[in-house]
């Protein structure tokens, strides 16, 4: 799948990480991210989704193993150089920020000493916030705020986005909207995206899914191969059934869990 002409953008090789000295949280974790891939991280609370994203973005340093970004060890990058290639958005975004939308989005240019020819208006238009560019962040809806931060990452120009639960706490309308926007970005700009999420229905439409339990990978690959009834039971500790219809649609049957 990956070759000399199509190398992985990000490689996580035998990573180990612990929050407490005597208790490993992540052990021997390895995976690759290819150009333009959309990868979903699924797992119960505390399974390691956020930790993996923070390791991959360099916020946390692994105790063992190595992370490579475009073939070069992540920790050898200068902060500003790394920021031009990789961008991380946390799950909790401060809602009390005193900035205007345009000010926030322009911060995406901070890694550049000489800003590239990317116009803030273009990014705002792409996320559908051009008419709210002078609004305060505090006055935006949850979905709009999320889109404003995504516009900031667009300006940053990174080819790899690491998103921690970008759909959390949003109405279904905004979840679909953000999801549509991310797919559009991937197609137009060939951006690779790794995102943690909870909704299995969304994950069913990703290129690749990683199912996690207690800091280890239960399965990684195409959604139909990984999101099986057995693996989901093991990962989430609940009986779920993936229904596949003849028309090609898929949905989750919660069965007797209600």
């Amino acid at each position, binding site marked *: 799948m990956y070759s000399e002409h199509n190398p992985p953008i990000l490689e996580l090789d035998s990573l180990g990480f612990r929050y407490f000295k005597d208790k490993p949280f992540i052990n021997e974790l390895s995976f690759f991210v290819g150009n333009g891939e959309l990868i979903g991280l699924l797992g119960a609370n505390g399974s390691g989704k956020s930790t993996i994203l923070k390791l991959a973005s360099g*916020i946390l340093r692994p105790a063992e193993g190595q992370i490579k970004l475009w073939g070069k060890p992540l920790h050898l990058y200068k902060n500003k150089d*790394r*920021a031009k290639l990789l961008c*991380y958005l946390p799950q*909790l975004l401060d809602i*009390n920020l005193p*900035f205007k939308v345009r*000010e926030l989005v322009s911060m995406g240019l901070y890694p550049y000493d000489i800003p590239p020819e990317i116009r803030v208006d273009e990014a705002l238009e792409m996320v559908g916030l051009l008419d709210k560019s002078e609004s305060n962040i505090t006055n935006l809806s949850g979905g709009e705020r999320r889109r404003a931060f995504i516009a900031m990452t667009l300006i940053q120009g990174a080819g790899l986005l690491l998103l921690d639960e970008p759909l959390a706490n949003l109405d279904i309308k905004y979840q679909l909207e953000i999801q549509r926007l991310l797919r559009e970005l991937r197609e137009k700009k060939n951006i690779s995206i790794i995102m943690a999420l909870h909704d299995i229905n969304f994950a069913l439409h990703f290129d690749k899914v990683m199912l996690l339990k207690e800091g280890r990978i239960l399965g990684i690959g195409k959604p139909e191969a990984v999101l099986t009834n057995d693996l989901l039971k093991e990962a989430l500790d609940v009986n779920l059934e993936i229904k596949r219809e003849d028309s090609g649609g898929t949905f989750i049957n919660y069965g007797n869990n209600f």
Partner: protein
Amino acid sequence: MSKIKISLLIVISISIFLISLYLGPNVINPFHINDIEKEILLSIRLPRVIVAALMGMALGASGAVLQAILRNPLADPYILGISSGAAVSAAFGILSGSYFFGKFGVPLTAFAGASIASVVVGAFGWKQGRMLPERLLLAGVGLSFLFYAVLMLLISMSSSEGIRRAVLWIFGDLSIADWSLIPYGVVFIIAGLCISLFRAKALNALMLGDDLAHSLGFSVQKERLLLFISVSLMTSASVSLGGTIGFIGLLIPHIVRFVTGADSRILIPVSAVCGGAFLCISDLIGRSIVSPMEIPSGIITAIIGSPYFLYLLRKKDVLGT
């Protein structure tokens, strides 16, 4: 529109600086100055106004930086215990009457106290290679209480005439200002201002949260430490020049934010200029209204500032929420 407003603020601030030179208990006509007035202007008024402007600049800028690095709208340069550390050591010097450095005694002891307090607060705020805003804030509040307790103990146990002088100093005493203090005040305050201005982008990013600041290419701990050092330099120098003057660091950045927005690259310099002007005018009022007595500037800043701040709080959304 905001560019016009910012320009207007700066013009008003410079005008206040000039006006406070010529107004006071004795009004000096700038177009007809005799020798005595020239002497008053150059030896008394000018150094005093420069000291007021420097102190106000330091406090206004420090407030803007601290509210951002601590991510707390109620933060001001004194919340970290730097001023109370200065107050204890300066009061000890004043009350014990033991000065080895002549007129530099009070500023030097105050600066030493402020610097020691900064290092102690910084050490408490530091854990596992990280400077944590919440720890910094709590350590500052805790240390302030301790320092004030020691200060009250010193004052209550003292029977010397120094008590009045110590109390005046604590509320901000600009009457001690003269040329000899200005050069070192300028060095520390300009150094602090330059650090905070050069790191203003990082400060904006830190307001988004540590993880986003990292993602935008900043070394979070290094930036926070640098900005903390800039605040410590400015606050220590300000306190040692003329005592602890409250409210400027809290109030001015909030008022300026209405006009400039929250971008630190503009907020910090405009807060500095407006802070300087505000202290100049407070000092002018303090030395004029009950002349020949003087009201400490710290009292005037609070008397003018508090009602205006409460008015703004009621009228507009000061805290950005």
